[in-house]
């Protein structure tokens, strides 16, 4: 079966096949344990148990001491959110807005200050460009993932 997952390096397509109780991916093998964990046998010969849990569309995997967070991309889903929007990394309160619509900003410039978990967090411009929209003012609550500001990237 074929699935797509988002990874920090981009979308990855994975095709696994089942023969009897054993799943195959190239030379790697996997079986499902009665308690819901997976026994993964890597091509190199190593073998370890993976603990898995799904939260919404994301599979959380603990394997060999590392924790992975792999969002499954629904077949046919459009890929949005890649451009322009500066989103809240976590829920919190807007403390200050330091720019105005139309303003020219430089990469690294502080655009907005959020407060969450009793700490200040700065929203920085990732590139130079123009601010094209501001969606919150100081004192407002924001949810994780809320688009806080929008900007266009300057062409070099």
């Amino acid at each position, binding site marked *: 079966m074929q699935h797509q997952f988002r990874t920090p390096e981009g979308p990855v397509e994975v095709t696994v096949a089942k023969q009897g109780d054993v*799943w195959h991916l190239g030379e790697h093998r996997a079986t*499902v344990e009665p308690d819901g964990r*997976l026994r993964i046998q890597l091509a190199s010969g190593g073998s370890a148990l993976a603990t898995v849990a799904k*939260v919404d569309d994301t599979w959380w995997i603990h394997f060999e001491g590392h*924790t992975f967070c792999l969002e499954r991309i629904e077949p046919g889903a459009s890929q949005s959110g890649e451009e322009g929007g500066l989103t809240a990394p976590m829920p919190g309160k807007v403390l200050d807005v330091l720019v105005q619509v139309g303003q020219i900003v430089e990469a690294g410039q502080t655009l907005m200050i959020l407060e*969450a978990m009793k700490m200040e967090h700065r929203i920085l411009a990732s590139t130079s460009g123009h601010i094209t929209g501001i969606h919150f003012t100081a004192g407002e609550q924001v949810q994780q993932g809320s688009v806080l500001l929008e900007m266009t990237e300057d062409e070099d």
Partner: protein
Amino acid sequence: MVSKVLVANRGEIACRILRACREAGLASVAIYAANDAKSFFVELADEAIALEGDSIAETYLNQRQILEVAELTGADALHPGFGFLSERADFARAVSQAGIQWIGPSPSAIERMGDKMTARITMRDAGVPVIPGEEIETEDEDEALIAIEQASTRVGYPLLLKASSGGGGKGMRAVERPEDLLEAARSARREALAAFGDGRVYLERLLTGSKHVEIQILADRHGRTIHLGERECSVQRRHQKVFEEAPCATMTEEIRSSMGKAAVAAAMAVNYEGAGTVEFLLAPSGEFFFLEMNTRIQVEHPVTELVTGVDIVREQLRIAAGEPMSCGELHIRGHAIEVRLYAEDATQNFLPAIGPLTVFQPPEGPGIRLDTGVRQGDEVTPNYDPMLAKLIVWAPSRDEALQRMRRALDEFVVLGTTTNLRFLRELCDVPDVVDGSTDTTMIDRLWPEGWTPTLPIEFEDGALMAAAVAESAGLHRKASVSATPNEHSGPVSPFMTLNRRYP
């Protein structure tokens, strides 16, 4: 006499204190905000009273309401834990005035140590060395900024701005260059004002390459003020401790003795009672400087408990009840290490994370202690501090303690919320940690561009395969096996003919 303790806190430290009360045979009362109604600490208390209000200010910082609960429940003592109201002298005073035993030092001791500038002056007067720096007493923003700018030229760069009412890294800024001073000062003042209602900041020279070493103090009403040796807490990110140990790897008997004496002198200078911690910077030269005194139990108290065999919270209860402390001579045995498990993304500058604790499986076995307030199935919310648990190990030697910590972290599984688990695990392999040459700037020095895990590509393959197989096999649609067993018989109970009917 103390018979019923109200615990004015939440999370792991509330659990710690409530269990100590249970063991001591004391009745206990928990208070909780609505979003904590299902938290573990609420279960551990004999009584639990809901607080009205939504914000922290309306609940855990609401002195009036907490005192009402104490009166309502007949609590005759109050333990503030750490954070929240634990270092608020006005609250300690109000508690005492209500006829309730405050489990901690006197309001005046809190005041004199709580204001960091006053503490610096008190310590200087008592002959305890303080870090070169200057106090800025004015509350007015413009005046303060001018004074800070002037003082900065005398203190020199790099320097630290610290909130006089601060703690936990809040209102603290390191300033490398004069041109960054004013923005840093404004930001520190703003954060301090929001967090503590007091915007005053002072300047200290930033002593790089130093260790953060602190001395645990206990003082009772029977004339004893003792220290329980040191903890080293140099490994910090965002000015917050993340890896703590006892004893300090480079400590000598001579420095321990003089640092211990200075700490006891600091405590006696303010007629201290109960448990407290005197923090020092220890320079490579062996010189040490007073940083501040925390007039409460500390997050990292377990490492001291494990190497000294003293139950510090239990001693707090004893001292508050007017009894002499029960511990004898200081005897440090073996080595203890604590790491703080945070819900945070170590690859994104330790940004706090939220989510469900879908899987939360701590390690087990000899020499491992877990202090936590969460359980599998709980939710990490943005309302409170993102610390999930403290994992503490003890072993006969420092090497063995590090080996045990590696093993423990390898066994720890947390899914559903991003944590710093892997960061902590890789910390245990850092040469500075292995050889004990940690200092307060280590994390910034090692990972100036931020931390990323060392990840063999094959492990990533394994994880992708696990996700694909789990999705294909529909594991998310199956209940866990253990939750719904159905092929086993319980023991057969013999039964007789007596019939009862309910109700």
